[in-house]
């Protein structure tokens, strides 16, 4: 199939997925127990008339279908609605938090992919030796630990007992720095714990997948054929084994993005990191439907976009996908 037809088909598939998610997001949050207005007003003795007026103001007295129609109509004109809690446009609130999360998730993901793939290759190459068994055990332990728990333990050790890193946040509020470098050093100190914690959580899985994928490839007959033809160990690894073994890892990275966001909620909450994860947590507790919808839409588009990129990368990595 030609490239344009393939792209078009994939794009239409992505659009359909996004629409289904929009539909589900809208009704899912409204099934949740709890009344957003009650959370918003915070006054248990408010008069019934006043409550009605606030409901009217936010359009919550319309039927759900009408609400959905209004939501859709506004969405297509680029309006994600107004937050119940912040009284600001959702788009502005979300966009304000994006850089912090991208910084955290991006750094942790890149770090964990590089280290995870590297360790996976080493363990596979040294299969059955002590280093492999120890590394494998650690990867399994890291992979099975709950994110929030690791985060709390890290805070306890490095921020409470040893006090070498700050408890949380993204920087000292109101601080002035003598130079750019001092500011950068301070930023890095704040970034260190959440990023390392997140990377640790992710590394285990990448190590396990890379190792097993590489071991599988190394058992293939074409690896023995290559050796029989005089290909060196290094080239067998880099030219034959790695490209074939990377396929499952690429898929995993793309699929993982959704779970990474879930992990970001826990990490950002524990470390008070002002990103999308923490915004989602507070929006959830406040029943801030428009923010939740906006966030879910944003995440959906990000995950679908990543999978789209993975599909394209797959075509490059695996010639069999082309036909």
């Amino acid at each position: 199939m030609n490239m344009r037809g393939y792209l078009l088909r994939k794009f239409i598939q992505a659009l359909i997925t996004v629409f289904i998610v929009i539909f589900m997001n809208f009704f899912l949050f409204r099934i949740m127990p709890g009344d957003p207005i009650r959370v918003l007003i915070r006054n248990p003795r408010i008069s019934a008339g006043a409550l009605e007026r606030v409901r009217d103001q936010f359009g919550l007295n319309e039927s759900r279908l009408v609400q959905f129609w209004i939501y859709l109509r506004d969405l297509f004109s680029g309006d994600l609605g107004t937050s119940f809690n912040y009284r600001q446009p959702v788009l502005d609130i979300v966009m304000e938090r994006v850089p912090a999360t991208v910084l955290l998730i991006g750094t942790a993901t890149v770090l964990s992919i590089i280290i995870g793939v590297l360790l996976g290759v080493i363990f596979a190459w040294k299969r059955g030796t002590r280093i492999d068994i120890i590394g494998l055990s650690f990867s399994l332990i890291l992979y099975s630990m709950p994110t929030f728990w690791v985060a709390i333990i890290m805070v306890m050790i490095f921020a409470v007992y040893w006090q070498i890193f700050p408890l949380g946040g993204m920087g000292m509020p109101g601080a002035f720095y003598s130079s750019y470098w001092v500011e950068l050093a301070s930023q890095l100190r704040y970034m260190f714990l959440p990023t390392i914690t997140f990377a640790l959580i992710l590394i285990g899985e990448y190590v396990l997948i890379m190792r097993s994928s590489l071991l599988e490839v190394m058992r293939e007959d074409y690896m023995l054929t290559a050796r029989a033809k005089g290909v060196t160990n290094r080239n067998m690894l880099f030219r034959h084994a790695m490209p074939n073994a990377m396929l499952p890892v690429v898929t995993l990275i793309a699929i993982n993005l959704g779970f990474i966001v879930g992990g970001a909620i826990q990490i950002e909450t524990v470390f008070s990191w002002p990103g999308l994860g923490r915004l989602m947590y507070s929006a959830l507790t406040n029943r801030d439907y428009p923010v939740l919808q906006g966030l879910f839409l944003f995440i959906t588009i990000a995950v679908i976009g990543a999978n789209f990129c993975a599909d394209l990368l797959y075509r490059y990595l695996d010639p069999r996908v082309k036909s």
Partner: protein
Amino acid sequence: MKNEHTENNPLISVRGLEVYFAARSGFFSSLVSRKTSMVRAVDGLDFELGRGEILCLAGESGSGKTTTGKAILRLLEPTGGEVFFKGEDMNTFNRSRLRRFRQEAQIIFQDPFESLNPRQTVFSTVAEPLEVNHLTRDRSEKEERVAEALVDAGLNNPRELFMRYPHELSGGQRQRLAIAGALVLKPDFIVADEPVSMLDLSIRAGILKLMVDLRDDKGISYLFITHDLSLAWLISDRIAVMYLGKIVELGSADDVIKTPLHPYTKALVSVIPVPKRVSLIGKTLLEGETPDPVNIPSGCRFHPRCPEAQPRCSLEEPVYREVNLKHFGACHFI
């Protein structure tokens, strides 16, 4: 052609070749005990392969045929014994000699869907051996040699195939591509590990004829590994029958098939399918499975399944000896 290969100057001679594997035990048992049991995959082999000869290693799966082939090519380290290649002891091969050996000896595998890297084009599959062995840098010369190898392997109009991937070829074409990848180095010796057993019957004959033609034209010797005795009879000069890591019988193809000595060979020969003769009366059907090579039976390793077994067989291992002229066997009663 036959019988003259094995004389004084063999291409390969194998003396007492042994390949043992540590049996894989589970993770936890390996923590508890240090004891490892051994799988004796190849347990003392002696044979010679003449120049331009096709020698078949026949036997059931698990008999150690493939391990023998890989050990001779040093794709895995033998545990013991010697292999002489063109008179040189391969145990003394250093890195550069081993690299040179890689150009002289090649392997073709059973399944062409697994023996070709799915990410390599036809051209790069065949050109890679030239590149890694630094045989040519010149692009047009490389193309010339790749095209030549493809034609030798029976793939006509090779240049149209250069940019194809293995998945775009048929099974027969893929096996020819694997053969071309071996031929491009102009080897003297090829281990063919069940090279046609995954192919359709209609394609088999073509591949087998190609291999025999290459022997006749280029003097390539084959160690042809198969479980199919009728195929062995068809293609080979001599047949060695393996059972549980040992050769139980070796002789010219006609001798082994027409006058088998060993009860195991007799049983295998009696079940070679013959057109229009479907009755199983008078045929020796072996009972049971090949034993686990971790626990090889005492005495003659075939005695638990042998229809002619005597009490002596479980106590004493038979000597492998020349029974008739150039026809060897290992049994007390031949």
